[in-house]
């Protein structure tokens, strides 16, 4: 079935108007501005290379904005942000439009400073498209405020004609109400300092992020963070160059180089944003496919790997709350420990009808919780619910199996304890008794008392019978040789004392967990017993070691019923079958 991704809701009127006008603006810029000047008022006009860089940056950002709009649902803010960054980038070209309408140049003057705020916001908000911490929101609003103050102040108070350092536009400012060259210069200086600081901070924080992030986060975030470093450095360098040489000129090698770096860094940032957006879109396509494949009943635990692939976080886990236990289990029903705070992992709850149906444990930096919730969407939520129910049943099954295995283990431990008690207690006492009887008999013999001697001889024989019986009893309760020497010797003893010929084959020399050996022994022992009651002429006992299973076959016994044996093998998650003539037990032993 072909994946069908529903078209996303446009972000209002702006969602249509903005990208269209932005692209149009870009094209106009391409056609008009570079021809309007001789390369003194804009960088783009100075050389073909600069023009290409200029267009790559502006159109790239606008294009990335379009990608956000098309591929990420409900992300009007992301669209605005990226497109505006593109528009603000082009503002510099419009400012320098020699002979252009004064209103265009005046407006462009107002817009241009916001470029810095837009790109910083953009980098901080990646990859989810929104600011995650209070500190980030504070920094963004401070930067927007600074840009607004500088923009407004210059619009109202700066007469470009009076500015000795004007270069791109020395004539038009329609918003001027009162020329205040002193204040205008102060505002310019303030803006240079803000740009320098913010540029350096952006670069420094981005580098720190690259160093401290988890490998996964580093990999997914580098398309945005690496251009962020470059752009920050280029912005700071531009400010620094202006502080040293207040009159900017596109013909100057330093300024034109800085411009190119800044432009290509912005273009790279645009590509990075595009990449991240495409990755998110791919994730939703994969999840949508998962939802549509639900009819084919996915194997337990398949959701986690799909999500991991979709989000690019290989360590991603989907876990489900087990009602009434406070535990979480994975898709196969195995108990999972939730990550502790810190460690770079985050847990995003998936809620359906007001109840938490799952937790997605993921890399905190790579995968954005909000995005994830969105990506999982309504359709995949059904898959989550489906798998949760499955996981719950599997977890209960696991618990049941574990408790069955425990019952068997407790029983075995109890038998072993009994055997040891018999060995150290009753058997020793009867031995001592037999010894004393022997001494007494020898005494009676030498005292010449035939009646007493006869009596004591009979008692001695009784004691020996008791010793033999106790030995058989102890061996029947728990064959010590099984624990001490393993399946081989224990099976040989079984065959030695069997009432019918027993042929043994394939006995392993390896040791296995106690419960496994004990189960194999009990099956063989009871099968031999059954065969002898059945009147079989002989029994063949064969063992096969098959990777992680121990297979025991007894021919000549059966068909049962052997409910007890089936239970015992089942408690170890093995398979037991009994048909006429063949008993077969497969016991997991890994």
């Amino acid at each position, binding site marked *: 079935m072909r994946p069908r991704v529903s078209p996303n809701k446009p972000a209002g009127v702006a969602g249509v108007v903005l990208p269209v006008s932005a692209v149009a603006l870009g094209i106009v810029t391409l056609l008009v501005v570079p021809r309007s000047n001789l390369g003194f008022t804009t960088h783009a006009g100075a050389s073909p290379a600069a023009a290409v860089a200029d267009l790559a940056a502006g159109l790239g950002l606008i294009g990335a904005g379009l990608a956000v709009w098309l591929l990420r649902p409900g992300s009007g803010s992301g669209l605005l942000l990226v497109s505006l960054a593109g528009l603000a980038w082009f503002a510099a070209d419009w400012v320098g439009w020699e002979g252009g309408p004064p209103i265009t140049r005046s407006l462009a003057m107002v817009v241009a400073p916001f470029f810095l705020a837009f790109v910083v916001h953009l980098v901080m908000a990646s990859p989810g498209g929104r600011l995650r911490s209070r500190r980030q929101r504070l920094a963004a609003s401070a930067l927007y405020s600074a840009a607004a103050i500088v923009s407004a102040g210059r619009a109202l108070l700066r007469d470009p004609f009076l500015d000795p350092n004007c270069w791109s536009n020395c004539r038009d400012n329609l918003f001027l109400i009162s020329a205040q060259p002193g204040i205008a210069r102060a505002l310019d200086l303030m803006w240079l300092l803000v740009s320098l600081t913010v540029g350096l901070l952006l670069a420094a924080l981005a580098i720190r992020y690259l160093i401290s992030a988890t490998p996964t986060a580093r990999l997914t975030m580098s398309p945005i963070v690496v251009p962020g470093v470059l752009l920050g450095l280029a912005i700071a360098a531009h400010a620094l160059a202006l502080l040293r040489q207040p009159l900017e000129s596109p013909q100057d090698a330093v300024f034109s180089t800085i411009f190119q770096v800044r432009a290509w860094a912005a273009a790279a940032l645009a590509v990075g944003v595009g990449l991240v957006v495409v990755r998110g879109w791919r994730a939703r396509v994969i999840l949508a496919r998962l939802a549509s494949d639900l009819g084919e009943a996915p194997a337990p635990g398949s959701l986690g790997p799909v999500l991991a692939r979709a989000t690019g976080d290989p360590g991603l886990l989907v876990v489900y709350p087990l009602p009434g236990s406070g535990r979480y289990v994975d898709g196969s029903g195995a108990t999972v420990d939730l990550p502790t705070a810190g460690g770079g992992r985050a847990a995003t709850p998936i809620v359906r009808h007001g109840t938490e149906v799952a937790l997605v444990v993921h890399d905190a930096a790579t995968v954005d919780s909000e995005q994830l919730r969105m990506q999982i969407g309504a359709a995949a939520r059904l898959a989550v619910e489906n798998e949760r129910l499955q996981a719950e049943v599997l977890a209960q099954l696991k618990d049941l199996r574990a408790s069955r295995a425990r019952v068997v283990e407790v029983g075995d431990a109890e038998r072993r304890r009994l055997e040891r008690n018999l*060995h150290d207690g009753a058997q020793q006492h009867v031995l001592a008794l*037999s010894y004393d009887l022997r001494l007494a008999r020898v005494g009676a013999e030498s005292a010449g008392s035939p009646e007493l001697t006869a009596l004591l001889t009979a008692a001695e024989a009784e004691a020996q019978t008791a010793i033999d019986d106790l030995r058989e009893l102890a061996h029947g309760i728990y064959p010590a040789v099984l624990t001490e*020497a393993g399946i081989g010797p224990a099976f040989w003893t079984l065959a030695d004392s069997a009432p019918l010929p027993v042929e043994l084959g394939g006995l392993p020399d390896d040791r296995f967990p106690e419960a496994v050996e004990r189960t194999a022994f009990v099956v063989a022992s009871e099968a031999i017993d059954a065969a002898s009651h059945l009147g079989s002429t002989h029994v063949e006992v064969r063992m096969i070691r098959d990777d992680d299973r121990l297979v025991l076959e007894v021919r000549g016994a059966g068909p049962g019923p052997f409910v007890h044996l089936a239970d015992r093998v089942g408690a170890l998650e093995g398979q037991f079958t009994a048909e006429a003539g063949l008993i077969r037990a497969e016991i997991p032993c890994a």
Partner: protein
Amino acid sequence: MRIVVAEDVMLTREGIVRLLRDAGFDVVGQAGDLDGLMRSVGLDRPEAVVVDIRMPPTHTDEGLVAAQQIRTQHPDVGVLVLSQHIEPSYAMRLIQEHPERVGYLLKERVFDVAILVDALRRIADGECVIDPTIVSRLLGRQRREDPLSALTEREREVLALVAEGLSNQAVASRLFVTERTVEAHTKQIFEKLGLAVDPTSNRRILAVLAFLRSPAP
């Protein structure tokens, strides 16, 4: 003869020590666990050790472990392992590792002082001692085609005594025949059973025991 007794149950240990002393043996050391036994063997220089198979710390096969260590570190010291288990595997493991100066007897057997004395003497002479109960358990094993049916009554008797570890001379005196006769019997038995081992070697006990246990004898 200098003897060290190792047994963790006090009652039994005292009984064995008393028996040995009454029979004229010199009990030079006593121990309740594996480490104690190894210390005593090093210090008290016994000629033979009587050791319970099950002792602290694990209460499993300490006696066999001790036998192996003693035979390695003090090859001249004989080891008689006492056990409550009729386990041919244990007896075979014992003589497999060292086919001389070792013995495996059921515990109640040693209260017959004649058997105890005989066993220790034979061990001191370099022979092996296997409990008759174990041999008869192996001889009595149910078989689909019994190769032992090819043997005469007398040959079966000789085979059992060989499996118990008796030398030809000892078999001869037990059966009131000449050593020559026993030699002829053993040669005949080994031929009939297809045993390829030299009927005069120490290894013959193990070969016989293994044969009696083989899957399709």
